[in-house]
Structure formats: C-alpha cells, structure tokens
C-alpha cells in the first residue's frame, strides 16, 4: 500500500473558549493544545459539557476561540477572511453535526448534492456521487423527501452522506452514531474506517459510543475543557 505522507492538518495552541451564558462566563475550553495529523482516525470523548462540540466548532472555524490559535493546513484560522474560510470548509472539511442541521427546503438528494454544487462539480459527476453515496448510507428510497419527512436516524445518515460525498480531506463528526441503530452505526463506521485506510481521509469524532472508541486509532479525553488523556493505539 502506498504510504501517505503525514502532515499536521490541525494544530491548536492554548485554545480557550469562554461562553457568556446570560452574563455568567462559562469556560468551555481551558487551554487545549493538540496536533492532528492527516490520516488520523481520532475519537474525542468526555462527559457531556466537557467541550467536545466547542472544540470541533473551533477547529473548523465555525466559532472563534476566545484566546489561543488554530492552524488549519498551516494557515492561521483567525487570519482567514470570511469567503476564504467558507471556501476552505467547502473544499476540505465535511462536518457531521450533532443536530444534523440539514437544509430544510432541499430534498435529501439536494442536501447531499449542495456542497458539490457550491464547489462547481460537473452535473453528471455530482449525480453519480450522490447516487453512490445514498446507496452506501441506505437512503436510496427517500432521496426525494424533505428532511422533515425523515426519522432522526435517517436525517443523521443524510448528514453523514452530505459530509462525505465530496470526499473532503477532513471529516469532523459530532456524535455521528448517536441516533443510529447499532447495525447501521457499525456499517457506517466500517465505511469511514475503510475510507480512512484507503484514501487517508482524516476523521475526528466526538462520541459517547463505545463502538466508535473501539475502532478509533487515537482517543482523546476532554474534561472540563482540558485534555485529560491522549492515547494512540
């Protein structure tokens, strides 16, 4: 197998995030220093409220850290402009949200297609990829439905399909298996693992799911907004 060269895709340096919850400051992240290399298959675990979602948001530029620095593929995130950041996300990051966050006015098929459309992928290629992807996640029969006409698990799968269809370099997944039955969860995990092995796609999960932790190559535990443990298997 061809050896994929490892580079630091995400680097954080003393990242702090303080939220303002109705005047009360909440320290969601308390100085996180982490380096994530390309090709990782990493799970971030920790109790609820430990800062997992916050961390994923910050490393993808969906949120700005209160203090500290984030490098994305060697670029300082805070120095990127709005359009540049959007393009970077579009081309390099697939995000699977904890709350699915599908576009309500678009059908399943269109939701999955959307990012490729933004990126200007040709129509036939787009179509082929969407069909293949929907097949993989088992949503072929519901491609014309709107998100509101789907179950939670189905929506979760659409979100996964949307994130992966354009084969971005990095997939950030916030509890991707939380709403799936164990069979579907296992299948998807299997698929992600295969993608990771074959293409070197980087995966970062936040999870409570033992199955995900099991298959992860690296396990980072957050506690009170700090890295508690960090072990590579």
């Amino acid at each position: 197998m061809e050896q994929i060269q490892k580079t630091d895709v995400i680097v954080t340096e003393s990242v702090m995030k303080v939220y303002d919850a109705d005047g009360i400051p909440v320290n969601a992240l308390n100085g996180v220093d982490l380096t994530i290399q390309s090709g990782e298959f990493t799970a971030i675990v920790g109790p609820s409220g430990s800062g997992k979602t916050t961390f994923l948001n910050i490393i993808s530029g969906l949120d700005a850290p209160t203090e500290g620095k984030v490098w994305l593929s060697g670029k300082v995130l805070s120095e990127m402009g709005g359009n540049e950041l959007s393009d970077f996300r579009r081309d390099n990051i697939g995000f699977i949200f904890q709350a699915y966050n599908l576009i309500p006015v678009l059908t399943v098929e269109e939701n999955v297609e959307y990012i490729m459309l933004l990126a200007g992928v040709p129509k036939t290629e787009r179509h082929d990829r969407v069909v293949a992807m929907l097949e993989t996640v088992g949503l072929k029969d519901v491609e014309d439905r709107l998100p509101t006409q789907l179950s939670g698990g189905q929506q979760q799968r659409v979100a996964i399909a949307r994130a992966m269809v354009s084969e971005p370099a990095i997939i950030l997944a916030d509890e991707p298996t939380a709403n799936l039955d164990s069979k579907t969860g296992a299948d998807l995990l299997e698929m992600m693992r295969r993608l990771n092995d074959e293409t070197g796609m980087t995966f970062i999960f936040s999870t409570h799911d033992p199955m995900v932790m099991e298959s992860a190559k690296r396990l980072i535990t957050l506690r009170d907004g700090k890295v508690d443990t960090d072990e590579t298997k």
Partner: protein
Amino acid sequence: MILKIAFRNIFRQKRRTILTALAMIVGFTLSSIVIGLSDGAYSNVIKMFTGNRIGHIQVHHEGYHDKPSIYKTISNYESIGETIQGNTDVEAWTPRVFAGGLGSVGEKSTAVRVIGVDVARETEATHFDKKVVQGNSLAETASREAVIGRGLAKTLAATLGSKFVVFSQAADGSIANDEYTIVGIAESGDDITDRVTCYLHIEDAQELFVLEGRAHEIVVIVSNINKVGKTTEAIKESLNDSSLEVLPWQVVAKSFYDAMQADKQGDAVARLIIMLIVAIGVLNTVLMSVLERTREYGVLKAVGTKPIQIFWLVLCEVVIITIGSIGIGALLGVLINYVFSIHGLTYAEGLTLGGVEFGTMYAEVNARSLMIPGITVLLSATLVGLFPAIKAARIMPAKAMRTH
C-alpha cells in the same frame, strides 16, 4: 442553486411571504391610485381651463401676447383659420376680437372688456353656449345682442332685455359708441373674468371698433392635448408667417401652468409617506424571517456557503417577492385607475384647483402611475432588504446553529 433555495423559502413561508407582499402591494396600489387620480385631476383642470377658455393654442399678431393692443390684428383671419384647420391634429378654431371700454346700463357704468366672438365657431370650439346660464346665447348672425358676465350684470344692475351701451375709442381713432340688447348672462367659471366681460357677435364688435375683417386672436382646439407642442410647430410651419405668433397654452397661461407644475411637486410628499409605510412593513417582515432562520443560514455557512452567497440569497428572496408584488400591484392599480377614469371619484364638496372648480375626480391610467410606485417599491424594498442580508451573511455558524 441560491435562486432555487430562495424560491423554496418563499413558498415554504407562505404566511410571511403573503404579509410582505401585501405591504408592498398595498403601498404600490395606493400610490398608483394617488398618482392616477392627481394626474387625472390635473389633466381635467387643464382640459377645462384650456378647452373652455384659452384654447390649446393661440395665434396672434407678433407681440400681442406680451403687450396686447387693439392695433395688433390679424387681417385675413378666415384664410388663416382654414390653413390652421388643415393640420391633422386641429379640431376647431375660432377668432376673437378684444377691446376695452366703458359699459353702461341706465345710470350705471363700469369698465368692461369686450370680446367679439364668432358665435358658431366659439360654440363648437369652447362651448360658448354652455357658459350662458340665463337667457339665450348670441344669435349666429350679428344682431346687436350682448351676453354679459354674471358679475358685470350685478354691477350694472342689468337684467335680460336691458339696453347695454358701450363707449370706447375705435381702431381708427374715432369714437366707438353703440347700444346692444342683453340676451344672456354668462358664467365662465372665473368670477374675476365675469365681473368685466361682455360678449358681442364678432361682426358687431368689428363694426364698433372699426376692425372690419380683422381679429386679435385665433383660438385653436386640438384633438390630443399631449401633442400640443408638436401641433404648435406644425401650425407655425403651415402658416409660415413671421408676423404671427403661435403659442401653446403653456406659454399663453404661463402662471397657471407654473402653478400646476408646483402643485404636482407637492404630491411627492404624499408618495414619500406611503413609501415609508411600505419600507417599514418590508423591513419588519424581512428582518423577522431572517431572524427566524438564523439557524439555517448558519448551516448554509457551516457547509461552505460564502457570506456573499448568503447575502444574495436573502436579497433574492426580497427581490422576487417585490417583483411579484409589483406585478399584482400594477394589475390592481391599472384596474382601479381605469374604473376611476370612467366613473370618477365624487367629492361631497367641490374641489378647486388652479381657479377651476370641479366635484368629480377622474383618474388617468398612465405610465407614470406604474413607473413611480414601481421604482420606489423596488428601491425601498431592496434597500431595506440589504440590512437583513448583511446580517445573515455575517452570521457566526456555531452560534447560529444553537438557536432554534
């Protein structure tokens, strides 16, 4: 794709779309009617003022308009009239003789303005017969009759059948003095005119002032008042006589014309207020719909939609609704203005504009009544849409996606 999402958003939030559209449609239609009615009223006033009095175009001897004088006459007015009639847009023409003098009935006398009219032509051109509110109009052949203004009749305590004596100086310097029988009392619609004016048959007047075969003024009525400038030029060309001046009503009644123009400007204020109401309505609904969908914009941005694309998305939604609303509003505006142009809008109390009184307002269906509201609605909606569009484009995805 942005357009597709915009359209779907519009159809998904039907209630909000209808509300926004309603504000625009009402605003558009209202201002369309206001413009239609006021334009109609102005046209009406102008039509009445020109058609019944000064005519649309006047022909005089060069310099008469600036400095009227009994000596500045048109000598072969019959043939000039025929030439004028030859122009396609000319409907009618009528010659007039003007002179001042002293008028008396019995012991009472006052200054009068004598107008000699060709009765048949004057009736055809300016409805002279309709101005006679008491008694009869003048006979079509000269028969020493006089019709005098209502105010003048009062001053002279004249009644129908009274003997009316005019005393003046004729064009040849001799003394002009003759007696006429009052057959009618006239109301021209302008009290000041009626206080001094008396009408004689043109031939009686010519005889009195020794102006045989001559007139001071030829009044021309055209079929299309909007083309009066062109017709004026055409008449000038066909006459080809530098000793004659051919003037459109805008020059003849300059102060009236200026007053009309100034009045029209005043309408802009009413329009502005309507547009302000529309703008506030639009701002409110658009802003609400953006706030309501903060989360969706957050998602769009999170998956890689550029801020500028989100900006366009919001603006597209506003513009699509606006164009639809303008379409519906235009239909309504034309329809309502059309109805008002036929049936008119009647005021309980008469309205006076430019010295002309009228009780029923007729609207006009014209391009202005669609263009002006169209441009203002589109402009104000787009301007107002900018603010929420910028707001949506600036959304921070993580924060936006936490809101429900």
